[in-house]
């Protein structure tokens, strides 16, 4: 009996121990559950971080939203354990088309199978929900009845991405029911999308900034070009004034030099007649028996021979002729300078450009006839108020220049058409072209690439002055070996007055 009491005690002790063990097991079980929950929530946190991190990366990588969204949508499916999703992208730029992705499968649930499916039913649901989202601009949850891939889908969640009040995109998630955990994750998605919206906004502003920067840059370049043109015309004006002064100063002495040379010519003719007449007296006097006369005549004859009077008589004539030509040349140049500097005060009348062009072609035909063909593309234009003589000079100048640049296979094209309240004349040749360095200077007075004495270097500068005087423009483009094109624009009477008004302002 003592043993039995001891045995019963031991048994009680064992039962207590077992009961404690059970208690501990139970505690362990709950600790285990708590631990599992922690692990799960940590796992979710990691996934959430990954999701937000991916969104953050979007800011750096500068992808297009539609190329980037599949990654985010996959993250979302993994995170919320949702089987299917699709997304739409509506770009800021209205010129770019909207984009709807195919139905995507959760990559965790569909390994090895195709990840994209087309479904008309899904398309219909999206078409139904999209206008609602546009209107409300908020997350939308709708109960549906759909079977995809043998899965019963009963809930669709549409999460919009809204940046700058613009609906940039929607992500649609197709779910079988909705757990508390999924609802929690949707909050993370919303936070992520807000972040995405901020990134999109930044990017949009950045692009806008870039565009305005580009606009400013091009405006700046246009400004620089205008400035260069202004400098050029200022230079031309200065040269013009200078030329006008010089021309005036040269003109006066040239006047009397010309008249003196002319008088001198008369005098010299008289001198020569006298000298030649007196030569017969010398020749007769040498034959005289009077020693005094004979000696004087001999001395005179010697002097005649010594100075080589025959040569003097002949050469004086030449010298005078050359001088006269020289003076004429100087007077021509000075006249050109005057015309360039708008010193001419010719009256302006309405002139028909096609007639002037024809006349200039006639005058240049001598030069052009051995240099290929002339092509005319003439359209009807209104008459221009101008000086037909001056304009003729401009065209003649261009045609002659072109003929100099071309060989026998040349082709001169003359184009006349209306353009911006005026007439545009394009004169292009397929000649040797002008190199860049020279192109800058071709309107400068005295600039020429022709041999000394062949060109004065005034032709184009005079043309420039004439066109300026008509309030038009003259430009040149050229390519070495290909040819040159001069483009002249002359304003109509109406346009011209507004232009001069602008000039006054």
């Amino acid at each position, binding site marked *: 009996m003592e043993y039995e009491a001891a*045995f019963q005690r031991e048994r009680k002790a*064992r039962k207590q121990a*077992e*009961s404690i*063990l*059970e208690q501990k*097991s*139970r505690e362990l*079980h*709950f600790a285990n559950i708590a631990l599992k929950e922690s692990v799960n929530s940590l796992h979710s946190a990691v996934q959430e971080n990954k999701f937000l991190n991916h969104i953050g990366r979007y800011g750096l990588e500068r992808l297009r939203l539609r190329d980037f969204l599949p990654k985010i949508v996959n993250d979302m499916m993994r995170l919320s354990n949702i089987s299917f999703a699709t997304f739409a992208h509506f770009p800021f730029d209205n010129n770019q088309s909207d984009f709807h992705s195919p139905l995507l499968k959760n990559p965790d649930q569909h390994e090895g199978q195709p990840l994209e499916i087309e479904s008309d039913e899904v398309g219909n649901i999206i078409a139904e929900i999209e206008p609602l989202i546009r209107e409300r601009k908020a997350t939308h949850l709708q109960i549906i009845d759909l079977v995809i891939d043998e899965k019963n889908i009963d809930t669709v969640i549409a999460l919009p991405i809204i940046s700058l009040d613009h609906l940039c995109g929607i992500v649609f998630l197709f779910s079988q029911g909705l757990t508390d955990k999924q609802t929690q994750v949707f909050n993370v998605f919303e936070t992520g999308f807000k972040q995405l919206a901020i990134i999109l906004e930044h990017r949009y502003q950045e692009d806008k900034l870039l565009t305005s920067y580009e606009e400013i840059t091009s405006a700046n370049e246009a400004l620089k070009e205008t400035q260069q043109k202004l400098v050029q015309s200022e230079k031309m004006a200065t040269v013009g004034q200078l030329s006008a002064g010089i021309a005036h100063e040269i003109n006066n002495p040239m006047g009397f030099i010309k008249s003196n040379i002319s008088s001198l010519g008369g005098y010299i003719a008289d001198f020569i007649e006298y000298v030649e007449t007196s030569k017969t007296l010398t020749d007769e006097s040498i034959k005289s028996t009077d020693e005094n006369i004979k000696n004087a005549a001999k001395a005179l004859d010697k002097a005649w021979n010594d100075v080589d009077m025959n040569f003097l008589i002949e050469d004086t004539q030449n010298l005078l002729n050359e001088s006269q030509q020289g003076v004429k040349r100087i007077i021509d140049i000075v006249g050109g300078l005057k015309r360039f500097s708008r010193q001419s005060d010719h009256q302006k009348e309405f002139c028909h450009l096609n007639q002037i062009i024809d006349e200039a072609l006639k005058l240049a035909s001598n030069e052009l006839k051995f240099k290929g063909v002339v092509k005319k593309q003439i359209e009807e234009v209104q008459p221009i108020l101008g000086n037909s003589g001056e304009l003729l000079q401009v065209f003649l100048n261009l045609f002659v220049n072109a003929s100099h640049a071309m060989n026998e296979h040349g082709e001169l094209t003359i184009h006349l058409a209306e353009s911006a309240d005026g007439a545009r004349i394009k004169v292009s040749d397929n000649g040797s072209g002008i190199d860049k360095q020279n192109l800058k200077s071709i309107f400068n007075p005295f600039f020429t690439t022709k041999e000394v004495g062949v060109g004065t270097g005034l032709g184009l500068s005079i043309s420039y002055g004439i066109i300026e005087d008509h309030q038009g423009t003259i430009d040149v483009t050229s390519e070495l070996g290909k040819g040159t094109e001069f483009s002249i624009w002359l304003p109509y009477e109406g346009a011209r007055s507004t232009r001069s008004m602008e000039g006054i302002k």
Partner: protein
Amino acid sequence: MKGAVFTHFQEMIEDQFGMECWETLLEKCDLPSGGIYTSANNYDDQEILSLVVALSEYSSVPVPDLVEAFGRYLYKGLAHSLPPVMMNFPDLWSLLGAVDSVIHVEVHKLYPDALTPKILVTEKHENGVTLYYQSPRKMCLLAIGLVHQAAESFGTPVIIKHTCCMNEGADHCSLLVERI
């Protein structure tokens, strides 16, 4: 099988037949465990079968009767081992309905490896329920004993009809439990 079943079996024998009987059974069966049982451990199913067969020989009581009697005895022990909140059932029927969904879930918390039988209420009648029993151990008689004892503890004695049985080749047992 869980050690708790063995310890309760041992206690039942000691109570009903005395300690000598238990020693005799152990000697006769020559069990791998040597009859050293704790509730925390698992033991071979065969051991309980050997012990029941030996007891039947010892006591001349047929095995099925013994198993059912043990079921009745076991109920008290098991009912005490659960947390009190788990045993707060208003009547027998709610207890039967909760076996799989509440009690066995609780057991698995303590012993994740425990092999509990599937016991479900498949039909409710005016007078009782139909129980579905399924277990590879095919110990439906033990379940019947447990149900009887439970019924008695609620003061609603029942009659149980075994309409189909795993031991007769069915894939499960159906027990029609009806109030007397």
